[in-house]
């Protein structure tokens, strides 16, 4: 990377979530500071290394113009910018595939990634819509996951049976997990595909059954190809209670990082979401961005 001696570098430091949220949402100062600059390069600057070597090879009679020695310039590497994700890619195609597979259809509330928009909708409805639980007591609300089937069921168990029997879903397809315990249970992180670990806010949903269908929160290492989702990592709060606001101390995040991604201290607050179809959350009926 070029480091011209006059190029300014702005330092950054960790800050807690609430402070960051506040700064960015309310009193946002203009952080942009680009200035046009000329750079004087000293003769010992590393930008001149290759040219100097060429010069001295010439002086020492070693200079050559061999075509075989020609280097190929590489295309700049792409990287997934989602915090906690350390995926790097050499082609746009790979990047798009990665992003579409693992970062689209992300639930705003619990940060889980779902394989499709439809499953995300169902997830949000079943996990995060308070109205759902109420309605489910009176009518069949659990939709069959298979698109076009249209059937609904009174419980997630019924739906699961339907999926196995009618749609030939495998029996060990993550149906049989009960309602998850929150907080106190520290979930072991599974060796993720694509070296990813997605961080999750403590505010985990607590609806039953279905979430296990769609989210890989088990310690099992079996992942259905079509259902590859990220591993969710729950922080052990110690007191066993879920918290609805994301005010956890960022520094305890350290334990969950893989060696691949450097430690950072920024956490995704549950109140801020991506828009435009990539990540959605339940905030009333329309899910409009704040």
């Amino acid at each position, binding site marked *: 990377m*070029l480091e011209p001696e006059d190029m300014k570098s702005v330092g950054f430091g960790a800050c807690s979530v609430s402070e960051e949220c506040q700064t960015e949402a309310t009193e946002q100062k203009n*952080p942009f500071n680009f200035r046009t600059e000329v750079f004087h390069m000293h003769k010992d600057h590393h930008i001149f290394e290759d040219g100097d070597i060429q010069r001295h090879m010439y002086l020492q009679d*070693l*200079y050559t113009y061999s075509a075989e020695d020609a280097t190929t310039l590489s295309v*700049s590497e792409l990287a997934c*910018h989602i*915090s906690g994700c350390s995926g790097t890619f050499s082609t746009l195609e790979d990047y798009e595939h990665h992003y579409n597979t693992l970062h689209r259809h992300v639930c705003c509330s619990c940060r889980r990634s779902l394989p499709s928009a439809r499953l995300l909708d169902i997830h949000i409805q079943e996990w995060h819509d308070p109205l759902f639980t109420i309605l489910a007591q009176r009518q069949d609300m659990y939709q069959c996951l298979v698109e076009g089937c249209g059937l609904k069921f009174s419980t997630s168990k019924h739906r699961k049976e339907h999926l196995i029997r009618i749609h030939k879903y495998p029996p060990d397809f993550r149906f049989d997990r009960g309602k998850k315990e929150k907080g106190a249970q520290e979930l072991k992180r599974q060796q993720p595909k694509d070296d990813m670990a997605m961080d999750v806010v403590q505010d985990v949903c607590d609806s039953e059954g279905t979430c296990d269908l769609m989210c890989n929160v088990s310690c099992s290492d079996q992942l259905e190809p079509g259902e590859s989702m990220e591993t969710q990592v729950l922080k052990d709060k110690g007191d066993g209670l879920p918290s609805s606001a994301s005010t956890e101390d960022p520094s305890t995040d350290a334990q969950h990082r893989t060696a691949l991604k450097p430690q950072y201290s920024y956490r995704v607050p549950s109140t801020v979401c991506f828009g435009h179809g990539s990540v959605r959350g339940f905030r009333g009926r329309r899910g409009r961005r704040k």
Partner: protein
Amino acid sequence: MWRVKEVGHKAGRHGGTLEQLRLKRRQQEKSLRQARRDRQLVSKRLLHVENEDDSEVSMDAASEVEDVVGLLHKLHQSGPDKEVNLRAMSKALRDPSTQLTFIKQENSIHLLVGLLTGSDARCRLLALQCLHELSHSPHTSVSLTCLPASSYLLTYLSGQSTRFTELCLYTLGNLCPDGDAVTEKLLAQGIIPALANCMESQRHNLAVVEAAAFTLSQLLQTRTAAQNIIPTVLASRLPSLLLSVLTPEPEFGPAPAIECAWCLHYLTSSTKDNRELLTGGALQQCSSLLGTLGGAVTAGKRDEGLELLLCPLLRCVGNLLCCCPVEELSSQVGGASFMVTLCAIIHTYLHTRPSLAREAAWVLNNATAHCSQICSALLSLNLVPALINLLLFSEGINVMILRTLANVAHKNKESSVQLVEHGLLAALCTTLKMADQEMVTLSLEVLFLLVDGSSKIAKEFVRQGGLALLEVIQFNSEREMRERASYLLHQHFVSYDQ
């Protein structure tokens, strides 16, 4: 006489297969890189003897040693075969172990110096050849034995014999890297005025000009050059002499221009204040030559000498641009042809010599940083689309290119609009995904420059699907990136929800 086109032949002369040669080169390159990191990058040049029969049988080491001692003995006796013996001696001294033997012999150097200053012209030349071989040794214990001859070597610089002067110059040049004591002595003995006089009186003799410039370049690379040597050089006629050699299309070959350009590079890169050189026309001359070479660059013919010349010229221009007053910049660099050449260099050497492309990109940044005329030229000459394509490439090139485009966007709104028309937004959608943090942060800055005050451009960015990228970056671990993405989303794109 050095000519670039002969280099290949010389390399082959030393025997060994092509593969061995390649291996040797790679090893040498590796050690040169390490030397540079240690600030110990030095080179010496050996002037090959012309018209020599290289196919003679090489003697074994033992007999050569005997030979040297025997030859010395004969020479001390001032016999009639002085010339023959000296010739044999100079051949023998090509061997490093013979050199060691030689310097250990009593009065060996004294003998050579005596012959160097004697009345026999041919013996002078041969003695000088012996000293030259010694000066080329990488061991300072050997090369420093030549130092007693330095005052004579300097004196002979004003002589008329081409070959002789060349040998003196290269010998002196080889001594320069051998320590502070050497440079002190040479400076005291007046090497700088001697070089200036030599270059001036011999300016039509390009072999001598090349040799003199090489020697100067050696001086300028010494440890204390910035304090002890450069001020004196700048005060002499040397800068203008160096510049006068930068004339296009030399029939002799680019070698003299190459040496002079490297001298100028060491001068401009050692200190930030280059106003003296600027007023002497250095920027004009270097840019002019660059512009002329542009034709050869775009013709794409692979010319070894061309690259060796482009490199120092680019560096001189790049550093001289830093102290050039903005209002004179465009006229000094020669406007359009200069810009075209710069871009041609970047594109031509992108894959074959990426370092050259990178240095040209740096020059482009310096040219566009403060000068609106240059920025407009970039747009009007339609050089921008090709530059935008380069944003994909790594190794620092894309950063400098992006800075250049940022310089253009920074000038006025009209420039931003034109940049967008050429596809900069689409390119940013890719650069915002890059692993290189500097690139991403810079891309955000450029995006800000483009959308700030232009709802049209903002809408276009949204239309191209850019918002998702910003949202992603909002949650990146680097605060610089987060702040910028967040600011853009909240201040410039807030009403563009689809």
